[in-house]
């Protein structure tokens, strides 16, 4: 995936209830030119995957509180709708803030 080559295009995706929505999506490289409707589930599956992966890490380090921020861009790649992890605020693709209170910290030291 070469970002400097990417362009945007409006594509049609279908939600689980059958509703069709228009999405401005980035497109890179060559793509087959059949007119198709993409299942939006392909994007939500990717978001779930990313969230679950981050959660698994957080569970290991057990912070008292945590916030996670990530930017998603819809993209068509090799004819499939997919989610691109892109820069959100600042320069990070994935911004994670973890906090521990004093008690938690001392527990962890002992």
């Amino acid at each position, binding site marked *: 995936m070469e970002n400097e080559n990417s362009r945007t295009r409006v594509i049609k995706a279908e939600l689980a209830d059958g509703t069709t929505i228009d999405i401005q999506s980035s497109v890179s490289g060559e793509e*087959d030119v059949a007119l198709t409707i993409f299942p939006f589930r392909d994007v939500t599956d990717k978001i779930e995957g990313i969230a679950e992966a981050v959660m698994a890490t957080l569970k290991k380090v057990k912070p008292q509180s945590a916030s996670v921020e990530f930017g998603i861009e819809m993209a068509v790649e090799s004819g499939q709708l997919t989610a691109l992890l892109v820069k959100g605020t600042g320069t990070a693709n994935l911004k994670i803030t973890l906090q521990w209170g004093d008690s938690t910290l001392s527990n962890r030291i002992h």
Partner: protein
Amino acid sequence: MGQSRYELLRQCMVRVAVPGGPKKAQGTGFFVAPGLILTCAHVVEDAQKQNAGIEVTWWKGQKTIEQRTIAAQLKEYRAAPYPDIALLQMELTDHPCVGLGEAAEPFDTFYSYGCPVDYPNGDSVTLECEGWTDDVHSLLKLKQGQLKSGFSGAPLLNRRTGQVCGLVKLSRDQGTDLGGRAIPTKTVLQEFSQLKGLQQNYHQAHKDWSGGNTEALKIFYSYAHEDEKLRKELENHLSLLKRQNLISGWYDRDIGAGREFGPAIKKQLNSADIILLLISPSFMGSDYCYDEEMMRAMERHEAGNARVIPVILRTVDWHKAPFGGLLAVPRDGKAVTEWTNKDLAFFDVAKNIRTLVENWGKGDD
């Protein structure tokens, strides 16, 4: 009235849709044999994988708003990414079929007609050929034409040969005229070898796609005015070729009696595809015919830009003339007026010209 190859291509084009599949895919296809449509496999993928129904819409060349939507069955399927082609079968036979031809070279220009997202009832695009990719998964690379969603499976008509040399597969950028790539006819005929026989049968019975050219070939008559009557008879014998829009004729009666090598004649002579030298004593005796028209005609013939055919009308000594090495008609160079039946002589001439016209651009020498 004959129809142009472009119009015929439009009449062969159909829209292919799989509305019941999860992708609700739509693309383009075209008739390659009676009841048989060629398209891209990725257009009908849902029909293969989910058993969803295929619908084909045909307009009979946009002449009416009437359209017919007919169910089609998947007959052959070669999955994407390569070769990515499929054959659909349907109950419809009153349609024309394209002529398939493998020839394609860098710098050839192509015409295509398909069903893009914004003009789902048909839209045109012209493209230039850049050449081939590797030989194993060979694709034709195209530029300078915008290929949008829906064009998958659209036929590529090679302007040079008048044959369909591939079908559109992908776009290199839908938002610009960067072009795309096409599956070559060569691959289609390798995968679906039954098409060779079907194509041959169809085009032997239907002459609408025969002849290798997309536009009528221009014929220039070079003759002495004393032979005007014979020239007219020859033109009558060629009139079917003219009605089929395979040839268009030009002679200088319309431009007045002055026989100087004027710009009008020069222009016609320089753009003619076939130049007929109507040989007679009058032709050989005319400085104008011999020195101007015939010499220029031979130059164009030798440069490969036109074909010169000596038509021997009346007996004269011509064998040592500059055109003496060319194949003369009628048969054996026997002058038309020497035949017991003049019509038979002209028929022999017309037959030779028809063979030349119908094989035009097919790589004969």
